[in-house]
């Protein structure tokens, strides 16, 4: 279970997140919606410690993430807004490298399998600099198949994906949901999110505004107890 | 005051005094501006309330 407590973040003197508290239960698919600049991406980046925060605490199954060593981040996998790869390397090399950063040694066959599963040609050896936005997004999704995560944090995963890509992503999410895995999805596409998520939380102006269960509006504080 | 090199001493002393005084003047002005803005923000805040 991920629990985020009283996170505050300012950029300069502009508050981006104000006292944000959130919990994601085991096997829960939580959607985070909000207009541009509401702090969704920043919250995600704080959880995986790409961005520092000004106060508050974050823990995974009771272990603090914020003031701990790198190993505490291992259960979390973050797919950011940007693809997060090295442009001069090929798709397979990028995947292999990331796997190694998580201490894994996948065989080339595994990597190829994951690449074809997201609809990329595993034989293609050129640098990913030549990839389109959609192809990069598919490659990013291949990370979720390569690395054994316990909580997946996805930031606008539909960006640049074509119709097929979108339905592939939806399929992936449905499989994860069936397998009871925990996900934190961020998108401004409320409709798309609500078709997948168990629960949705709206962030606006850096504050949690409202949350819904299956379309039913209720107050966030009531939900924390449930989760 | 007819000693040699008096000009050099005077120059050094004036540089230091003027620099420190200008420094104080600059930050003093800054403080004044900030206090005015604080007052303005406070009144507009209480008007909203």
């Amino acid at each position, binding site marked *: 279970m991920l629990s985020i407590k009283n996170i505050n973040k300012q950029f300069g003197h502009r508050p981006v997140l104000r006292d944000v508290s959130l919990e994601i239960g085991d096997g829960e698919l939580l959607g985070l919606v909000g207009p541009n600049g509401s702090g969704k991406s920043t919250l995600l980046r704080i959880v995986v410690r790409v*961005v520092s925060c000004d106060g508050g605490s974050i823990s995974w199954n009771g272990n603090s993430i914020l003031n701990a060593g*790198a190993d505490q*981040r291992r259960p979390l996998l973050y797919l*950011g807004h*940007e693809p997060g790869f090295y442009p001069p*390397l090929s798709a397979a*090399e990028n995947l292999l490298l990331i796997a190694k950063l998580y201490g894994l040694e996948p065989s080339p066959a595994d990597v190829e399998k994951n690449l074809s599963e997201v609809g990329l040609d595993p034989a293609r050896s050129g640098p990913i600099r030549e990839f389109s936005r959609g192809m990069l997004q598919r490659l990013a999704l291949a990370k979720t198949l390569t690395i054994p995560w316990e909580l997946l944090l996805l930031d606008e995963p539909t960006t640049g994906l074509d119709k097929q890509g979108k339905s592939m992503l939806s399929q992936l999410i449905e499989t994860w949901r069936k397998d009871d895995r925990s996900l934190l999805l961020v998108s401004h596409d409320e409709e798309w999110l609500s078709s997948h998520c168990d629960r949705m939380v709206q962030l606006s102006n850096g504050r949690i505004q409202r949350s819904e269960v299956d379309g039913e509006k209720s107050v966030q504080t009531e939900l924390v107890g449930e989760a | 005051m007819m000693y040699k090199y008096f000009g050099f001493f005077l120059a050094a002393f004036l540089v230091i005094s003027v620099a420190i005084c200008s420094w104080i003047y600059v930050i003093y002005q800054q403080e004044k501006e900030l206090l005015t803005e604080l007052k303005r923000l406070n009144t507009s805040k209480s008007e909203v309330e």
Partner: protein
Amino acid sequence: MLAVLVRKDLLIEFRSREILISMITFGAAITLLYAFSFRPSPESMLTFAPGLMWMVFLFVSVLALHRSHSLEKEFDAFSMILSAPVERSVLFISKYLSGFIFLVVAQMVLLPLFFLFLQLPLPANLAQMVAVFLLVDLGISAAGSLLSGIVMRVRVNEMLLPLMLFPMVTPLLISAVKSTASIMDSQPFNQWKLWFQLILSFVIVFSLIGYLIYDYVSEE
């Protein structure tokens, strides 16, 4: 983990060849300019060569240091690394080591060119020369990796990096020039031991600061 990260930097460089090619061509160009502006003769050059040499390497290293962090930003691979279970201190050491390797490789090409173009006699004690060069390169990349990590997310960082780096490494540059001059003058080690110690302390101080503090620098 350290080996993975360093190998990654080397593989990227092997694929793109951006850093080394720009370092070497830029270094060769400055060396050529030196040759044209000083019309070298072996006697006169001995006095100035060590200083000119280290100026070239310092300029050249800025290219590598800047590129190694800007490459991380291109597709935001840096966020990927930061979110991965990799200690930031290890990340610093990896940047430090790969910067060092690039500098050494560039020097292996540029140094012969430098001696050739400026008509310098080879120093008698090559082992000393190599030791001093390796140590100074460590110092440049330690301070440089820390500083390029610091300025990487600041605007106009390509200009800020040399502005921060050059004054910071003055003690290193002085010591490097002095010890190189002593070696080329075939002086015994005892006479320039102090310079060697200064280089060593610079390397230690900046490696330690970087190792301990990079965590605070890396997060956005």
